[in-house]
Structure formats: C-alpha cells, structure tokens
C-alpha cells in the first residue's frame, strides 16, 4: 500500500469511475504522489481521465491557484480511490500533469505519520469505507 519513505511519499492506488465501473489500472495498482500543497482530492493526467471515461459526464470547472499567482482551470467530477483496504470518494480532476497527485481532500480521510528520520511512515485511521 505504501512505499519506503526515501523521497516524495507515494501511495499505491486504484481509481474507479463508479458510474461505469471502469477501474484504472485494470490490473495491479498505480503510484500517486502525496502532495500537501494541493488542496484537492485527486489530480489525474488527461489520458488517465479519458481512459476512465470521466469525460462522458458533464464536468465541473474550477480554478486552481498556482504558486506563481496565476490561475489555471481544471475540470472534473466525482469518483472513487481505493488504497489498501479503504475506498474514498472525492472530486477527481484532470490537468496538465505528468503524475497522479493526491491532495489534502484525500488526506483528510487518514492519519498519516511521516518519519523521515527512519525513512518510515504510518498510514492508519481511515474515515472512508473499508472494502
């Protein structure tokens, strides 16, 4: 579920579009970066967003504030993220990113302790449902 804490923290996740039951990836898991600077739930690459066919739904637009003070527009809708035994729901959006990014909305479901001294981290206390 989690990888050794060497650099940026990652989680192994599965993404589900509950409206058509599509899951990404179809086999195994995909790595998503944990970014406390991002206030959203999950940011996807546009190709992954399309594979899951989230774009078949009518999408909500919102503005995201970049660190340089500029805004970009992102589009998204609601979906599920499965991590280990837990399944959480939240706003899944797409933009020009190279990675999958989990933000604060996602993290608010968990108690995560990062211990860079021992290169270890703990992941407990989910508020979302147990699969």
């Amino acid at each position, binding site marked *: 579920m989690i990888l050794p804490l060497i650099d940026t923290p990652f989680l192994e996740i599965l993404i589900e579009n*509950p*409206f*058509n039951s599509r899951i990404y990836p179809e086999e195994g898991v995909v790595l998503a*970066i944990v*970014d*406390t*600077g*991002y*206030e*959203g739930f999950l*940011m996807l690459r546009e190709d992954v967003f399309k594979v899951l066919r989230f774009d*078949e*739904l*009518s999408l*909500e637009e*919102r*503005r*995201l*504030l*970049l*660190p*340089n003070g*500029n*805004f*970009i527009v*992102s589009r998204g*809708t*609601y*979906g*599920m993220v499965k991590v280990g*035994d837990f399944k959480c*729901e939240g*706003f899944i959006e797409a*933009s*020009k*990113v190279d*990675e999958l*990014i989990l*933000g604060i909305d996602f993290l608010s479901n968990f*108690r995560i302790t990062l211990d860079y001294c021992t290169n270890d981290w703990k992941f*407990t*206390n*989910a*508020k979302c*449902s*147990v699969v």
Partner: protein
Amino acid sequence: MGTLTIVLSDDVEEEVRRIVREIYGSDRGNLSKFIEDAIRNYIHSLKKGEVVYRAYKGDELVAEAKSLEELVKLLRESGVDVRGLRIIRSDLKRVARAGYRLRA
C-alpha cells in the same frame, strides 16, 4: 484514561473485531485504539457537516444522496443514462491551491 463498558450487537462486534485484526493488528490495546479513532472520526464528521451529492440531467435533478455509492445505486435503479450527467457535491471549493506539481 477512562474505562467504558459498552454493549454491541453480535454482528457489529464481529465486524469491529475483524477490522481491528485486519487494519490495526492483533496486539493488546488495538481494540481500544480503534474505538477511540472511530469516535474521534464520528465527532469530527458531525462537526464537519454532511455533504450532499446531486445528479442533474440538464436542469432536472434526477437523484440526491449522502454518498457517491448511494447516488450511483439510485441512478442504476432508476435507469438513468449517466452520459452527460452533472454531479454536484455541496462542499466543492471553486478555487483551490494547486501545489507545485501543476504546470500552467
């Protein structure tokens, strides 16, 4: 540290013990940790307020639920074509910080 004596139905007790074993492990004291976490979370969720999901087809509200899973179930039961469906949640922030990984 307080000590509470509580009574649970058999099915809830079995479910609680299963989850504690799977997530927290079988060490002594983990059941108490789980109960404390669960109560903290419940209190937090009460303070945070409930969210509501709404599904619109055009301007028409076709389903409303307190969770996405429940909304999907309602839509499936009513046979609504999900293509073009607009899903709204009551707490979506229209402006949010993107972090350093996004590009303009």
